[in-house]
């Protein structure tokens, strides 16, 4: 084992962003014929590390050696030329072109009259066949096959350049169990041909099934490189989180559950609310002071259900009740009028308005509910802004700064303040803690619990099961655009319960 030479050696990689050290002296070694997983929590630096290896980010310190040669990677083309190919979580192919063209783009076979399409498609077919995809017609449009198949096509494309290293960044996050097995089969084929695979996944089962070696990162720092077979799960989780297994059960302590009294009426109740192609008709109750967690994989419909409850997408089916009274919510405007607020998962594009100040961002929803001819009196506005700046601990504490200059966590706090200012009865938070630092994350989680304690109904949508389980009173589990379970979150419920619920529903189908 030890005489094997690594194909890629990254040493002491440091990447700094304004104000943050995203990576601090991280090492990574990739060996031919091995699947290597990069492990760590969100924000540990996994994707930054991958972007360093694919030439997207420039490294501030450290060295990258490929095949024994020190290598500078200034862009994706450099990485490709060095034999490093990448398949991203969101498939980066062109859906307007055919399958074969996508496989061969930039490597088309040329004859005397330019591209020879017959040869090119034959070559594409050959590469697809190597992956066991010979049944795909290279002339069919890429948009005619499922996302999972597109991912496999993306791998076939990666192999066209004779890659020595294949990076798979969370390829399984939107796949079902069978599709994951198809992917693994292809990964084994590629691995056995002597390629080094770098694999990122949040699913521990998958890690133990497919990988040979692990590198663990935490908060941008290198923790350890281990062999998968020799590392028990709890030890791995301990290294990722930075706590021993015993300590883990301590901080995982859940909040006291809010019991729903018999006969109590929910604040918001939806019956068979749905929208074709996005979410199947769904029932859901949210009680005052209750935190309802939406759990599910990417593409499960968790965001779609949240958007539907806010009218951001117009429901084409079902009924909506607020405090027992039937209402119609078909746009964010009507939702706001009914005291229902939604904070988007897409903070940058749908949340903040970057060129307005913190103060303006905070007041914009409240102003919208009043109408444009009734400005908020300056004194009242000052009080509101002042209150939420303090309450949510927005840093820096200057409401006249442009919001785009704040960190992600503080932008998120301002967005929450924006919705709190309209005093909603139901607050839907979609991924409020994604991509923000650990301190702000804890503050936001704490705020969610406080709001519920004050009697607000909260829907908490997150891809991190850990926080869903810790914060929610009940958990709605979604899969394939459908609500598949409603779990009362008592002491017997853990992340594993939810994972099993999702996994088992797949087997029945």
């Amino acid at each position, binding site marked *: 084992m030890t005489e094997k030479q690594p194909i890629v050696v990254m040493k002491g990689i440091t990447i700094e962003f304004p104000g943050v050290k995203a990576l601090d002296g991280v090492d990574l070694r990739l060996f031919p014929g091995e699947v290597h997983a990069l492990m760590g929590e969100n924000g540990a630096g996994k994707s930054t590390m991958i972007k360093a290896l694919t030439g997207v980010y420039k490294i501030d310190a450290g060295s990258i050696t490929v095949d024994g040669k020190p290598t500078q990677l200034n862009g994706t*083309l450099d990485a490709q030329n060095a034999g490093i190919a990448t398949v991203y979580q969101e498939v980066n192919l062109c859906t307007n072109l055919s399958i074969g063209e996508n496989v061969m783009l930039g490597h088309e076979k040329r004859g005397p009259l330019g591209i020879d399409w017959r040869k090119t498609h034959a070559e594409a077919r050959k590469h697809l066949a190597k992956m066991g995809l010979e049944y795909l017609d290279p002339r069919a449009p890429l948009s005619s096959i499922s996302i999972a198949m597109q991912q496999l096509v993306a791998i076939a494309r990666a192999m066209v*350049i004779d890659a020595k290293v294949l990076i798979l960044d969370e390829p399984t996050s939107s796949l079902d169990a069978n599709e994951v097995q198809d992917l693994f089969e292809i990964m084994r084929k590629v691995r056995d041909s002597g390629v080094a695979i770098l694999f990122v996944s949040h699913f521990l089962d998958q890690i133990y099934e497919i990988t040979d070696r692990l590198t663990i990162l935490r908060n941008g720092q290198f923790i350890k490189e281990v062999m998968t077979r020799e590392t028990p799960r709890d030890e791995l989780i301990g290294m990722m989180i930075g706590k021993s297994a015993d300590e883990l059960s301590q901080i995982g302590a859940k909040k006291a559950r809010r019991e729903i009294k018999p006969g109590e009426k929910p604040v918001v109740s939806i019956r068979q609310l749905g929208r074709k192609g996005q979410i199947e008709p769904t029932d859901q109750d949210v009680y005052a002071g209750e935190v309802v967690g939406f759990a599910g994989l990417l593409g499960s419909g968790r965001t779609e259900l949240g958007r539907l409850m806010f009218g951001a997408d117009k429901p084409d089916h079902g009924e909506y009740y607020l405090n027992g009274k039937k209402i119609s919510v078909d746009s964010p405007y009507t939702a706001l009028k009914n005291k229902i607020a939604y904070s988007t998962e897409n903070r940058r594009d749908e949340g903040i308005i970057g060129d307005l100040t913190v103060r303006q961002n905070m007041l914009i929803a409240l102003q919208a509910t009043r109408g444009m001819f009734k400005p908020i009196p300056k004194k009242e506005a000052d009080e509101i802004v002042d209150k939420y700046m303090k309450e949510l601990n927005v840093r820096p504490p200057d409401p006249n700064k442009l919001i785009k200059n704040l960190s992600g966590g503080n932008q998120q706090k301002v967005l929450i303040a924006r919705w709190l200012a309209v005093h909603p009865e139901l607050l839907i938070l979609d991924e409020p803690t994604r991509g923000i630092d650990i301190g702000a994350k804890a503050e936001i989680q704490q705020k969610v619990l406080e709001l519920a304690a004050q009697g607000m109904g909260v829907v908490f949508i997150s891809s991190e099961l850990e926080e869903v389980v810790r914060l929610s009173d009940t958990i709605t589990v979604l899969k394939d655009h459908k609500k598949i379970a409603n779990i009362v979150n008592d002491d017997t419920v853990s992340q594993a319960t939810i994972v099993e619920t999702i996994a088992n529903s797949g087997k029945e189908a």
Partner: protein
Amino acid sequence: MTTATTVNAPAKKAKGGKFNAQMIPTIAAVVIFILMLIMGQVMFGTYFRLGFISSLFIDHAYLIILAVAMTLPILTGGIDLSVGAIVAITAVVGMKLLNGGAPAPLVLVIMLLIGAAFGLLAGVLIEEFNMQPFIATLSTMFLARGIASIISTDSLTMPENNGFGWIGGEGWKIIDNPKISNDLSINLGVIIAVVVVVFGYILLHHTRTGRTIYAIGGSRSSAELMGLPVKRTQYVIYLTSATLAALASIVYTANIGSAKNTVGVGWELDAVASVVIGGTIITGGFGYVLGSVLGALVRSILEPLTTDFGVPAEAVQIVVGIMILVFVVLQRAVTVLQKE
């Protein structure tokens, strides 16, 4: 071209139809062009005459070239608004030089170089300064038009025996009919336009640069992550469209025999209309050069047809507007069908 084969693709439901769906707007352009010809023939009896067809091509060779030029940026989701103004500046400079006694071959080269220079400038603005193609070419449009006006606001006529006019002259009679209106003739301008169309077709469908253009239209970030030379391709696109605009200017000026700083006002929009009518989707990714050529022909035949119908010349633009509207609605319908 791509004929959707259904070779051993099991359980992947009828998708031959999908590729055809992309071609519907282009096919519609063909059908409409033929219908317009037939309608003209039936009602006025002159449209099938070879003389009519000949002059349709000779008079609108420049528009065909501009339509091909405009297809490239639009396929990437961009646009080149400067083509009309480039026609003006190159025409004015060309006429000035000819009148000053410069030899015709030199004048041609200078005109093409001026076009290329504006294309390069647009490329630099778009790629190095991260400007939207709309804004970048809007500014080069005003720049080119402004320089043309500074150089001269007079109507400049081509001098006698200039070695330039033969490009646009009467050309050659292929079928010499006793009735002049049945002559089939062709001139160098039309041949240049045909060469440009063939060039555009080969560029887009048989070179890697062409495929990169489609890929950028599908998703620029994907194209970049696939390691395609996106930046270089963007330069190629705007250099080509601007140089072709200069070529269109040569063909047009040679045909008309004079030039003014106001020539080509609004031609960029005629070119966009041709491209859209020809079935290229304005947001990029789908479309064909041949479609744009048909779009240009539809646009060209509109004028005689509406005049013969007694529509006042002022109202022709309304007809163009309605046609664009119809085609865009058609495209939307196709895109929706594809998503289903």
